[in-house]
């Protein structure tokens, strides 16, 4: 919700790390690694002007229609799971639910009502995946099922996901939702591993891939949303916020997201006014969840160098200080293997 003054310095360091690593690894994975902000095109972000949203739900209906073919069709009865404390999550009997996120409802309208500066307000907020720039769901998925694409879309591969729900646990907004009885786990060890597939907004990836717009943006009669290169959307968000005396959400949350919101009411006020909980994400400030890992990556880059220096120094000190005490080296087996010799051990 607010700008972090240290961010500029941080990005420089990250770019250094990224450049160094990407250069060396490009030899090993040609074409696999692509800088998301490279020449090929900046990642795309969406901008929600909440002052325009009336909560009509046209976006929700369009999302459900456009993505219906991706919704899960679970096999029943569900396989028994061990231990018995593991519960199935079945949304297939509640497909019509639209007042929260579910495997069958990837977008819903959150409504905040209250008082701000002596005036009552009613703000409607379309909520779905924030499509983080550095998504924990994709970074921590142990199975490689979640990934961020070059255009900024974060997707979960339904053919690979095992439904462990780790992505939901580490998501700052707990966006992905599980449906039991579908996916790869059924073919492996359904009793002992996995529990379905995680589902969430993929920002209509197929449409965007061919130059189209997500269904929610196309369907909106009030042009609440816009999509474009992130830098353009950020500039537009700030200009809009200046015009209406509003506030921006999503620019710096979790280190930056590709879903930006501009509201005439501060987001902490909105957060206090909306209903949050399972399938109903909050609007509070989120620190960069991967910030510590970024710093540790920097340490990991220099760790081997430090080890090499330590090894060379150790050898130097042995040659310099301990040479006179060492017995002459023998080429046969006796030297270092003599009990208690200690030669070569340091």
């Amino acid at each position: 919700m607010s700008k972090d003054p240290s961010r500029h310095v941080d990005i420089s360091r990250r770019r250094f790390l990224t450049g160094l690593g990407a250069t060396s690894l490009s030899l090993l994975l040609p074409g696999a690694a692509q800088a998301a902000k490279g020449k090929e095109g900046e990642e795309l972000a969406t901008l929600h002007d909440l002052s325009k949203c009336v909560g009509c739900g046209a976006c929700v209906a369009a999302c459900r229609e456009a993505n219906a073919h991706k919704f899960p069709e679970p096999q029943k009865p569900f396989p028994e799971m061990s231990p018995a404390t593991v519960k199935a999550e079945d949304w297939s009997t509640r497909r019509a639910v639209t007042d929260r996120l579910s495997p069958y409802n990837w977008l819903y309208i959150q409504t905040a009502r209250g008082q701000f500066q002596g005036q009552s307000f009613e703000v409607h907020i379309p909520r779905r995946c924030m499509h983080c720039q550095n998504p924990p769901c994709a970074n921590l998925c142990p199975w490689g099922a979640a990934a961020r694409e070059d255009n900024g879309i974060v997707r979960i591969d339904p053919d690979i996901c095992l439904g462990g729900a780790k992505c939901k646990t580490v998501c700052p907004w707990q966006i992905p939702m599980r449906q039991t009885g579908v996916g790869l786990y059924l073919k492996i060890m359904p009793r002992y591993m996995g529990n379905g597939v995680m589902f969430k907004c993929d920002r209509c990836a197929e449409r965007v891939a061919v130059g189209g717009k997500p269904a929610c943006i196309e369907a909106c009669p009030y042009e609440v949303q816009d999509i474009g290169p992130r830098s353009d959307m950020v500039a537009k968000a700030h200009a809009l916020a200046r015009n209406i005396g509003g506030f921006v959400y999503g620019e710096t949350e979790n280190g930056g997201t590709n879903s930006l919101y501009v509201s005439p009411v501060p987001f902490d006020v909105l957060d206090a006014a909306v209903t949050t909980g399972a399938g109903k994400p909050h609007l509070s400030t989120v620190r960069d969840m991967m910030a510590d890992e970024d710093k540790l990556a920097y340490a990991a880059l220099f760790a081997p160098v430090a080890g090499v220096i330590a090894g060379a120094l150790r050898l130097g000190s042995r040659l310099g200080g301990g040479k006179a005490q060492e017995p002459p080296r023998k080429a046969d087996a006796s030297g270092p293997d003599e009990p208690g010799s200690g030669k070569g051990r340091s």
Partner: protein
Amino acid sequence: MRAPISRRVALAYVLFVCVLAVSGIMQMPIASRYRIVAVPGLAWLGDFWLTHKLHYLGAVGLLMLTGYVTTRWVLEWRRDYCLSALGWARAGILGLLLLTGAVRVLKNLPSVSFSPAPTMLVDWAHLGLAFLLGLLALLRLGFRGTYWQNKGAARAEAAHTRPPQGGPVS
């Protein structure tokens, strides 16, 4: 057979590998499912962020140790020692583990994105290599093997096992 490395270095390796093994396994969502978190003192294993950071920390330690040991080996120890078949296997698996881990760390940086297929390949390779390393350690224990040999001893052993060729040399 006496190892060229000190006990401290060996213990550091065991420590880092144990940290990496535990924190790596706990990257899979099993701590909650299998009620490991309910065991007194083990609740922290269910904290994905904590175990993730521990995994990074363990990797930093192992990378440093690898740099140290490799330098000592190249500059010093290789005059007297050579790797056994088990040693070569461990070196290869460790090298690939470090490489796939490095690729994953790179992928986790904010401005880098890999396409899903290579990400998955790296994840699975990292997981498989970790299991192979554990299997190798068990094999070594089971067969009481060593990762290195003293060059003199290796030569003597080779001469002992080699069938005699030709007549006596005067």
